[in-house]
């Protein structure tokens, strides 16, 4: 447990020391969202209708651009070798890194989402389900994205390839994140959608942790 917490603590500390690396993802999130009113026009009704979709899709893209760095720095300076040889199973080290990644990106995006909702005229009833959905959905993104980040470590091209690998896997999270918002807006119960998002997270946990660890071992050979 000590080793597990040490990895989370170190990644968080590195992110704050590196100054703005975590802010980079948030910056991308905010800038990308502000492009939409320019793209579809500033009418409040139109924006309000598609606001939840804009926020969710941009959250997926912001997560995707952050994955390339998830393991690369540790790979390049030799830290990954030591993590793989440590008494702590590599699967748990991967989980610790995914948690740190989520705290720095997913949680930050979730907290920022209501502010973006204000700018996009998101209907009042949608705030709760949007944030609840992001809270359950973004950890699944960090877990599944880790697979892509680990798979491209030894590859010749990184960034764009990660997107092609992981974005299709994100589709169920997006669908149920949005359906949570839409169900609330037409007066249907919210709970089933959140339960399904929780189930998706429960699947992403083993798949992400074992998939990433297998890919990392391959990259280290």
């Amino acid at each position: 447990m000590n080793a597990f917490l040490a990895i989370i603590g170190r990644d968080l500390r590195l992110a704050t020391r590196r100054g703005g690396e975590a802010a980079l993802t948030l910056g991308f999130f905010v800038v990308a969202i502000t492009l939409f009113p320019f793209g579809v026009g500033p009418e409040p009704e139109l924006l309000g209708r598609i606001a939840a979709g804009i926020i969710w899709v941009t959250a997926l893209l912001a997560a995707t651009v952050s994955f390339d760095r998830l393991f690369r720095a540790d790979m390049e300076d030799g830290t990954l070798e030591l993590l793989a040889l440590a008494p702590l199973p590599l699967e748990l080290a991967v989980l610790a890194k995914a948690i740190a990644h989520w705290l720095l990106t997913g949680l930050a995006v979730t907290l920022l989402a209501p502010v973006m909702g204000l700018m996009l005229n998101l209907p009042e009833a949608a705030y709760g389900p949007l944030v609840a959905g992001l809270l359950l959905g973004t950890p699944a993104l960090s877990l599944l994205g880790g697979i892509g980040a680990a798979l491209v470590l030894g590859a010749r091209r990184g960034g764009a390839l990660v997107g092609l690998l992981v974005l299709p896997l994100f589709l169920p999270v997006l669908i149920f994140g949005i359906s949570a918002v839409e169900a609330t807006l037409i007066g249907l119960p919210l709970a089933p959608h959140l339960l399904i998002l929780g189930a998706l997270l429960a699947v992403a946990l083993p798949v992400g942790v074992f998939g990433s660890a297998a890919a990392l071992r391959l990259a280290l050979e």
Partner: protein
Amino acid sequence: MPNFLHSLASPARFQRIANAVLPWVSVLAAVLLGVGIVWGLVFSPPDYQQGDTVRVMYIHVPAAWMATFCYAVMALLSASFLIWKHQLADLAARAASPIGACFTAIALITGALWGKPTWGTWWVWDARLTSVLVLFFLYLGHMALSAAFDDRERGGRAAAILACVGAINLPIIKYSVEWWNTLHQGASVFRMDGPTIDNSMLWPLLLTVLGFNMLFVVLLLVRIKSELLARRIEVLQRARASGRG
């Protein structure tokens, strides 16, 4: 050198079996596809609602079936490669990927061609078409990843991990898309209710489905054979470069 021969032992056996099987399967595929397509396009009756448009079905349905089938085969081969480290499974999985992608592309294109007269538009976000599109992306990712490594074996194992992860996620994606589609009730969904289809349409369809399966076997064997030859060339070139050839 015995070590090298040992690693070639089972590929050599594969070559023998493939060479024996290939002509028969090729003829079978050609006959099944020829008879099925001619029957479907010329002799089978037009649909009472859709008219001659329904004939796209004889290509579209088998292609869509093969799209999923290829991915399943690829995932099984990848899993066996990761577990038993069998080189031939890696070769076969990577050979299957572009074939599956082609079947998927055919399913998407014929789906769009069918959609134009049926729905009045080339593309609707219908549950089946959308799932097939996502499947196409999964194939593209698999092909891109296996080609992105300088080291062939590394690319193979990375792609194998991805294929397994994709296979676990594919049913979830499929059901999510169906759920999303019922939520939106956008286009009127064309339903192919299998059991109620008339025999005059079922037989040619069955023939083309079988024909596509045989075609897959033919293409897979040819691709594995050519990949084995490419590796032999590489080994010979490397031997020449190190002055031992």
